[in-house]
């Protein structure tokens, strides 16, 4: 069971990160009130999962809250527009442009081109060490979706020959 870190408090995270989270949500929703509501949704999710959080650094907390805010905004967009695949990727999916994939030489550029929903899952699972279940709970998606995005993200990176993992 994760030990509660005495330094962690939701209100501190809110004051520190709310502007960024709002900016992320607004970029997706293009509506001030809905973006604020998405920030609230994100913190509801955080509050529900606070016992699973193991934030080790400022960078991790920023990445985590950005990912949660993005997913909360996408959920709202999904409900608003009744879409099944509402993922407004900031960056183009590599598989749509196999020629770009072949031309991409820089790993950083490759990762940069990953759609944010793949990148978020990879970041939380592979870098920050959350389990699939924890990641699903934090992002408000199902474990199946986490597995799919993880698999897809790794597949995209593997095509560049930079990811080589056995499990």
């Amino acid at each position, binding site marked *: 069971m994760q030990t509660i870190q005495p330094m962690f408090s939701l*209100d501190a995270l809110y004051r520190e990160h709310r502007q960024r989270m709002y900016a992320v949500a607004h970029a997706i929703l293009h509506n001030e009130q809905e973006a604020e509501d998405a920030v*609230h949704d994100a913190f509801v999710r955080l509050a529900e999962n606070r016992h699973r959080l193991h934030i080790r650094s400022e960078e991790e907390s920023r990445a985590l809250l950005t990912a949660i805010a993005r997913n909360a905004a996408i959920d709202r967009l999904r409900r608003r527009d009744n879409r099944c695949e509402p993922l407004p990727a900031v960056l183009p999916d590599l598989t749509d442009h196999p020629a770009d994939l072949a031309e991409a030489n820089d790993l950083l550029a490759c990762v940069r081109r990953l759609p944010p929903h793949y990148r978020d899952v990879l970041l939380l699972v592979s*870098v920050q060490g959350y389990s699939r279940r924890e990641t699903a709970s934090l992002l408000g998606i199902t474990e199946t979706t986490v597995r799919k995005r993880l698999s897809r993200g790794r597949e995209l990176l593997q095509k560049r020959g930079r990811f080589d993992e056995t499990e």
Partner: protein
Amino acid sequence: MKRNNDWLDALQAVAAEENEQWDTAPAHTFSDAHTEQMERLLQTRIPRKNRWLTVGLSAAACVAVVAVALMSGGLFDRSAPPVTDGTEDGVVGGTPSSTTSTTFADTGSTEIKQEQMGNPDIGTPDIYYEGPSDAATGNSSIPLYSYFCLHLKAATVSEVNETYMAVVPDEMPVQGNAKKFCVLLPQDADYAVGDRITLVLDPSKISQQTITETNKENGTVTAYYVHVIEPVEILKGEPQ
């Protein structure tokens, strides 16, 4: 098969880039409805606009002063009877209320007791300082006992870390910069819960370094003394 972790580093780097991008977005003024909604969720008061920055900096300065003093504290003999005492207005951090000084005959040292009344509505804690004073300069030196009054808006204390006997409020965020401190309690500590949470220790069970008093009027805690130890100090060794 050898694992190539370059992509992990790249992932972190891209995440950091993205964070930086969002950090430069124009600041948004949150609506009152949102702020009230968040206050209900977080069970804390969120100052509007930039008032928090001023309050937070003042509270942070107060807490930092006492934190440094706590970490480099020394022994102070309280057994000698006071020779002289007096009162005067003093300053502890932001907005103090009073200072009382007491001089001890055997050591010639002076103890200062200072009170700073906080405002729980905006997140500044009450700070009560007691400790030796530099008789030559009249300035407060390193205190042996420093007290924080933690005003926590909540109904109950919901979690106790049994390993360190530190009380960490779970559903109730600690206000102001007192959030950085855990309160170390001895075993079998008693809690008094009122309009705000108060941490009351049974005087018969506490160690010399920890003293508490509570004064409760009309169902509301008005003052109490609690010895606060930073979590890092708890982890380093036996509780004081």
